[in-house]
């Protein structure tokens, strides 16, 4: 199937962002201010008469959110759109869903478009779940009879059967989201545009939504999907478009593009020191002093590889005598998968500068980028302080033996000891015993 679903050529969208500051008036004489004030209504009338979008100022500051975009998407493709914040991802979806007009270029679309830039658009807190399903469905472009037909299915998906006639303002935030997503998930357009709507909700529900989206894509629908969840993107999409400053950086196989994107955006931060306890991150109980990532390098290389032990040191000020403290460390991959969580031994600590350290053993982490979240915990279970992205580092691959040079799969890469034996020599002789297990790889 190679029919074109979306074709964009030279697509551009320009925004006027805040014209010159009003503060400029300060430098004018009072007389100018008064004439300006007197003329304002006339300028206003003129711009209304011309049907322009008046700015009130001559010097505008222009910003191209999208510029010169060319791409074609075939029917049945599931395409991820990636890029940093402000790269133009959401603007692209807004243009494709006709929420806003492009400034130049054009897009041609073959098929019915459904867009999901937000879940629960048009939900009204005072209305019941039932009313909101119909309202939201109508806004997303469903026919009333279509909504009525899928109504029970939606309610079951959202697991809110008992509360369906209650105003949604009485719903828990989880119920609200589930209901909102249930409507969206039952939308059946030929082309679906999805903004980062899965960033909300609990993990179990996210999985359910991703599963539902997987369903959708397997039924041969065209999907354009914006997300920061690289794992989801790799699993769901066949193709990815990487945007930066409103332009396409790379367009191709999802795995490859995501890989390049992650490489480009990886940041290593091996050391952070806050010399002044007054301004260091923390609170009245604990303040950070320094965080260090110390790779235990040997002579052969100056990079962290999968075989390098990594020492992690956290020092912090404790201001409370005999506080029962420990630190808890979460290690995340760049795809936001938590690789592990380890904690130091809780102990009564004196007032002063303290240090907790540990070592990540060699042959544990796969190659990739990792970052650390640090929690300081008191009395075994009370979080005193939580600091995401306290440090980041990159683990390189080693020179491998053998003929496989591709990306080694997996989150971890342990050195696991294998034993290989010869149990019998020669071709098998027919017997009534089970066959020996096959050796792997």
């Amino acid at each position, binding site marked *: 199937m190679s029919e074109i679903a979306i074709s964009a050529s030279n697509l551009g969208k320009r925004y006027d962002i805040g014209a010159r500051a009003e503060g400029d008036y300060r430098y004018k004489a009072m007389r100018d201010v008064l004439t300006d004030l007197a003329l304002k209504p006339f300028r206003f009338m003129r711009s209304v008469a011309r049907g322009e*979008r008046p700015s009130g100022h001559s010097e505008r500051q222009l910003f191209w959110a999208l510029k010169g975009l060319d791409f074609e998407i075939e029917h049945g493709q599931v395409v991820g759109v990636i890029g940093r914040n402000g790269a133009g991802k959401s603007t692209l979806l807004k243009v494709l869903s006709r929420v806003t007009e492009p400034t130049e270029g054009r897009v041609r679309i073959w098929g019915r478009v459904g867009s999901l830039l937000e879940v629960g*658009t048009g939900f009204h807190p005072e209305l019941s779940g039932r009313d909101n399903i119909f309202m939201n469905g109508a806004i997303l472009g469903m026919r009333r009879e279509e909504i009525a037909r899928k109504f029970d299915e939606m309610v079951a998906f959202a697991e809110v059967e008992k509360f369906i006639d209650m105003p949604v303002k009485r719903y828990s935030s989880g119920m609200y989201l589930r209901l909102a997503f249930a409507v969206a998930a039952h939308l059946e357009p030929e082309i679906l545009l999805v903004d980062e709507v899965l960033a909300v909700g609990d993990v179990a529900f996210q999985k359910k939504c991703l599963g539902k989206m997987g369903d959708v894509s397997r039924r041969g629908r065209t999907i354009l999907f914006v997300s920061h969840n690289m794992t989801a993107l790799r699993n769901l999409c066949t193709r990815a478009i990487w945007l930066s400053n409103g332009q396409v950086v790379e367009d191709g196989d999802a795995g490859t593009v995501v890989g390049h994107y992650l490489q480009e955006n990886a940041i290593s931060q091996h050391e952070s020191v806050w010399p002044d306890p007054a301004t260091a991150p923390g609170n009245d109980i604990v303040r950070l002093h320094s965080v260090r990532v110390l790779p235990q390098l040997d002579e052969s290389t100056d990079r962290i590889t999968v075989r390098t032990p990594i020492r992690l040191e956290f020092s912090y000020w404790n201001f409370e005598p005999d506080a029962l403290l420990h630190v808890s460390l979460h290690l995340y991959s760049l795809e936001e998968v938590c690789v592990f969580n380890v904690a130091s031994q809780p102990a009564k600590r004196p007032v002063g500068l303290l240090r907790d350290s540990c070592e990540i053993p060699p042959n544990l982490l796969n190659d990739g980028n990792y970052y650390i979240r640090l929690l300081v915990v008191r009395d075994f279970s009370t979080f005193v302080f939580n600091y995401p992205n306290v440090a980041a580092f990159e683990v390189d691959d080693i020179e491998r033996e053998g003929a496989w040079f591709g990306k080694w799969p997996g989150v971890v890469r342990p050195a696991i000891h294998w034993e290989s034996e010869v149990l019998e020599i020669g071709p098998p002789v027919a017997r009534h015993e089970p066959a020996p297990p096959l050796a792997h790889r």
Partner: protein
Amino acid sequence: MEIAPTTGWVALRLRELVDYRELLYFLTVREIKVRYKQTAIGAAWAIIQPLFTMIIFSLFFGRLAKVPSDGVPYSIFCFAGLVPWTMFANGIQQSSNSLVGNANLITKVYFPRLTVPISSVLSGMVDFALAFLLLLGFMLYRGFVPNVHALWVPAFLLLAVVSSLGVGLWLSALNVQYRDIRYVVPFLIQIWLFATPVAYPSSMLSEPWRTVYGLNPMVGVIEGFRWALLGSGSPPGLMLVASSAAAFIILFTGVIYFRRMERYFADII
């Protein structure tokens, strides 16, 4: 389907409204359902507003100022004017704020934006129906039985809706860019009330000024209402023509201006 920048004058694309009639229906129902939620006396507010205004007007204009009322008891004369006026005024107020109030819809989903102010005006019909029933009851109590002229009431109601929507479209589109409108609207409604024969009869003017006065579309509506229900005044002639023409011109220019500004709504709201 093709997406490209539009320039200059745009087609009105009113057929799209027909395609989205279900959304229009749901938006209107939502407005109606939400309007009196979590109020102690609910829809009674729809009646209280014209009723109390009538009492105050009767006291000051009827009793103290002795304003003439075309041979009808002043209270009924005044109330027959206030019922359509309240619909018109509330329609303007609700619709002028409707786009800004639904900013989250405008920036997230595509649909014909005209449905938003239209549903605001239409949702006022429920309030109108309640107040109208009260008016009928009041008339019967005072011994006014409507005659065959009452069949004209829907036509005058339509004229009131057209006027309200026309003004509402202008104000709602302007309000997206200039939040000044929020402060203008209450002021505008107050002035307009006194420029309309709600508290006094238009028979205080003589031709040709009556026809010029008719350029205020609500003049035709209210004089028409009184003539159709109470038989007071004269059957509206030239004045009604002027009012109808004015109402449709406001609506037509309103739709054009709205469609022209529509492309910027999502960016500047």
